């Protein structure tokens, strides 16, 4: 084993191989910086070049890219409050408040150092574990995976803020949204309204961007300022590294957590960061600052999400089972290179596996260094007036959104989920809880059904299932116990409730009634299905409806002091747009509308011109320069992905040349 390990290192240590690795790393960093774009897009950019490359170089390039995306996606999470990719959603909770406070440098350096160590740790786990992992992975059957999904759902308790009922309600809403599309047990279509688009469900990237990015962009635009309230950015780099050192055990625990959860096929990487975040909240003595800019809330998810890649490679290589979308594309890359994953990867082809291990470790280090070099420049974005940045953000997130099915419906879905996100944020329904429900909806349903099919209800007595249930209970208890002097045992993910006590309750009541109506609709739809196909959304809707009623009661009674009373609009704002949030939503809706008429590219150019002139009040030269830059950027990206932009009525009627078609 060790001989192979060092032979693989020697093989990798040529200028050519390292050069290709760095190429992958640089591309990964660039893709990771753009919000919403992750491994799938990055790997798709590389796939056309794999043909004819030698195996080691190609592997180095692919792994270099995969390894650093969870490092560079931190930029968007910390600086913009937009999850850079699905792996760093939880980083937003504390990272973004830190950069608003002017501590962006500290948050970034803590995140990068934690990412690097997490990534190297993941590579280490892969080294040793890959040889013995088969029986361990096989011991996680559908029953254990179901228990793990429940463990993931239990994190909702920690992320519910001051009102648990809203957390459960939001998670229920996520579960209902997540059950759109075909039922795992029967293949029946649920709540797809007869459309092809909803057959496969709403894509995760759209839900994540809609929930987090759209409300944040709208909010920042309304305030009309720059992101950072302080223009001081240069300092704090050492503080962040010191923070990581102080919390080294936390970091290692979270890295271990990330590697293990990544290695279990079927759970997927999208909840790793939330579980790590939940873990740090549960095990910390002083948790008053979580959600308001506690550096531990950055270190935990960032160390876990890089370690996850090392773990995630284990089932991909050993069983050919990709744990995530990007691993699926990586798998296709392997096949193009003539590598068949299987048990031989821990045996006859161990040299290939160890090439991957070394690349993973080295790429993490190189990636971190490059991020640190690039950080001061990128961090300066937070001092620019946000109205100048917003159109670029909207361009990138809509580009990321239509990666899902390459159609305008992706943009419509983004807008719809975005409006839901704006209301959730405004009324203090925790969006992380919604997202966890959404991500785990399909998994919990599928694995419950399969576990019952394979083992009967006796699956609950399997030793490993019992162990996971015990861990879940301990974790709930750890999270729920209140320490002396604490107001609440969980993190206010939507901001401090005391500032948002409204005297006019009707907007909140109206929203809660709409939520209740959604649950009622889901319940009604489930009645139309077979028992197996309908039982899961039924339960999710019932639980969500009960929680919503608990939220509604104090509101209907007019109890202003209740923890259910939360309306961000009641909190004082320094600046505001005359039309409030609706003005910004109207801009987005107009953009989607123009896409429907003239296609994405023309709409983008028009949007840039109009927005920069009207909202940002930029001069004509400035407007033109920024518009041309945006158009050039998007054309380059689309061209290298062989992408045709979503078309509209114009494209339907006329055959136009690319990029207009």
């Amino acid at each position: 084993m060790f001989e192979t390990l060092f032979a693989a290192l020697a093989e990798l240590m040529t200028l050519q191989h390292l050069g290709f690795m760095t190429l992958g790393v640089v591309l990964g960093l660039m893709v990771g910086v753009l919000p919403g774009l992750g491994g799938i897009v990055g790997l798709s950019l590389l796939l056309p070049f794999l043909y004819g490359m030698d195996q080691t170089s190609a592997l180095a390039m692919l792994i270099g890219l995969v390894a650093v995306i969870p490092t560079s996606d931190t930029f968007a999470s910390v600086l913009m409050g937009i999850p850079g990719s699905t792996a760093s959603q939880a980083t937003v909770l504390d990272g973004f408040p830190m950069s608003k406070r002017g501590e962006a440098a500290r948050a970034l350096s803590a995140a990068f150092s934690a990412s690097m160590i997490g990534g190297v740790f993941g590579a280490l786990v892969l080294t040793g574990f890959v040889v013995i992992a088969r029986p361990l992975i096989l011991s996680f059957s559908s029953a254990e995976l179901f228990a793990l999904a429940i463990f993931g759902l239990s994190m909702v308790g920690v992320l519910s803020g001051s009102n648990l009922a809203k957390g459960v309600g939001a998670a229920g809403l996520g579960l209902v949204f997540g059950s759109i599309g075909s039922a795992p047990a029967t293949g029946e279509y649920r709540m797809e309204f007869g459309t092809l688009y909803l057959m496969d469900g709403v894509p995760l990237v759209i839900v994540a961007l809609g929930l987090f990015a759209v409300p944040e962009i709208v909010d920042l635009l309304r305030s009309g300022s720059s992101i950072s309230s302080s223009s001081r950015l240069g300092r704090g780099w050492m503080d962040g590294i010191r923070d990581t050192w102080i919390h080294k055990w936390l970091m290692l625990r979270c890295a271990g957590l990330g590697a293990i959860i990544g290695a279990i096929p079927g759970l997927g990487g999208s909840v790793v960061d939330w579980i790590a975040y939940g873990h740090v909240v549960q095990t910390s003595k002083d948790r008053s600052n979580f959600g308001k800019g506690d550096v531990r809330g950055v270190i935990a998810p960032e160390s876990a999400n890089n370690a996850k890649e090392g773990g995630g490679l284990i089932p991909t290589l050993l069983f050919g089972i990709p744990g995530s979308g990007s691993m699926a594309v990586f798998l296709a890359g392997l096949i193009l290179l003539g590598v068949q994953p299987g048990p031989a990867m821990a045996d006859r082809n161990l040299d290939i596996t160890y090439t991957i291990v070394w690349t993973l470790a080295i790429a993490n280090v190189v990636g971190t260094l490059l991020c640190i070099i690039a950080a001061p420049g990128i961090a300066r974005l937070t001092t620019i007036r946000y109205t100048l940045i917003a159109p670029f953000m909207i361009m990138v997130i809509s580009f990321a959104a239509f990666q899902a099915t390459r159609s305008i419906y992706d943009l419509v879905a983004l807008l719809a989920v975005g409006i839901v996100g704006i209301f959730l944020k405004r009324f203090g329904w925790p969006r992380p809880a919604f997202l966890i429900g959404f991500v785990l909806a399909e998994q919990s349903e599928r694995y419950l059904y399969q576990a019952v099919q394979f083992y009967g209800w006796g699956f609950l007595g399997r030793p490993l299932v019992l162990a996971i249930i015990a861990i879940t209970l301990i974790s709930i208890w750890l999270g729920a116990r209140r320490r002396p002097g604490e107001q609440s045992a969980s993190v206010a993910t939507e901001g401090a409730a005391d500032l948002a006590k409204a005297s006019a309750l009707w907007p909140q009541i109206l929203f809660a009634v709409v939520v209740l109506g959604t649950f009622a609709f889901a319940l009604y739809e489930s009645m139309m299905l077979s028992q197996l196909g309908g039982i899961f959304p039924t339960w999710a809707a019932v639980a969500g409806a009960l929680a919503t009623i608990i939220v509604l009661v104090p509101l209907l009674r007019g109890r202003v002091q209740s923890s259910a009373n939360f309306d961000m609009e009641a909190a004082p704002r320094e600046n505001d747009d005359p039309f409030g949030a609706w003005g910004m939503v109207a801009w987005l809706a107009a953009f989607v509308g123009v896409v429907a008429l003239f296609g994405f590219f023309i709409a983008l150019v028009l949007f840039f011109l109009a927005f920069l002139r009207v909202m940002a009040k930029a001069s004509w030269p400035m407007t033109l320069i920024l518009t041309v830059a945006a158009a050039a950027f998007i054309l380059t990206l689309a061209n290298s992905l062989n992408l045709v932009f979503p078309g509209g009525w114009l494209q339907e009627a006329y055959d136009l040349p690319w990029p207009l078609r």
Partner: protein
Amino acid sequence: MTKLGRRGFLAAAGGTLAAAALPGSRALAQGVNFAGRNIEWVIPFSEGGGSDAWARFLAPYLSRHLPGQPNVIIRNVPGGGSITGTNEFMARARPDGLTFIGTSGSTQFPYLLGDPRVRYDYEVMPPVLVSPTGGVVYLPARFGIQDASQLGQLADQELVYASQGATSLDLVPMLAFLVMGLNVRHVFGMTGRGDGRLAFERGEATIDYQTSAAYLSNVQPLVDAGTAIPMFSWGVMDAQGNVQRDPTFPDLPHFVEAYEMMHGQPPSGVEFDAYMAFFASGFAAQKPAMLPKGTPPEIVATYRQAFADAINDPELQANKEAALGAYEQAVGDDVEPLYRVATTISEDARSWVREYLTQNHGVTF
């Protein structure tokens, strides 16, 4: 199935027949030149799937052998279980030879089943390549079944198969087990054949199949370790539509042989007809590449020739193992018959399958 106007049908059939019947496609292909052009190969699946890998492997060779060496790029149009992208291609693609499509069994099945969301019609798209694939059905060694002739011993035992869904590619094993008379319970919701293999290795599933490449790399070790025993391969189809042994597994009986070993007579009946239609569409001719409706015969001939040359490219032959397996790719004159078998089903067989799926698995059409 989509109703086709008689005139449209005749015109299309005429077009494809003309392309097939004209001798010497090389002669016909002259005059077509794609130099300096970009050719789009539409794949109605996302990056990273089996069809994507198939197209990406073939694209550089096709590019090399099309006249003028155009750039062949893959355009993924995912969504709607591949129906979306194929519908769009059918409605929009121009018959100028600059765009063509590659589909898979998961695109053919809803068409064969008469899914109302399907707006494409295989009959009018001229095929230029058909790629087969195969797989092997295996059992746990603990059952003590040595080969297919002993399968009858399992008659009163319930087997469990981990399936991706009743209308997915796993419809083929479902029909196969049914025709054979095996008592199999299908547990749905697997996200790929890899999931099914894992369930088998854990002892949850007690019968499974893997496609050839996955079988060789992941199941053969189990067979060598004495924990799994292969029963039969799906087999491949010759130009006459007869099932033959899989070249990857020449020592294993194919499905029809296995049936005979078990029952002493060849299979027949509407169930078997249905099985054959879906087997052809899901395995023997799983991935066809087609040009848009109404493409001129000389362009069709150019593509057929280019694919034939590409497949015979020594470099492709040397590298094809991981992407294509040992299967003979249908090119030139072999394309048409295989394509027809894979994209047609008798009305009896179709209504029988629909009825069966509705009755037993609650599928609504």
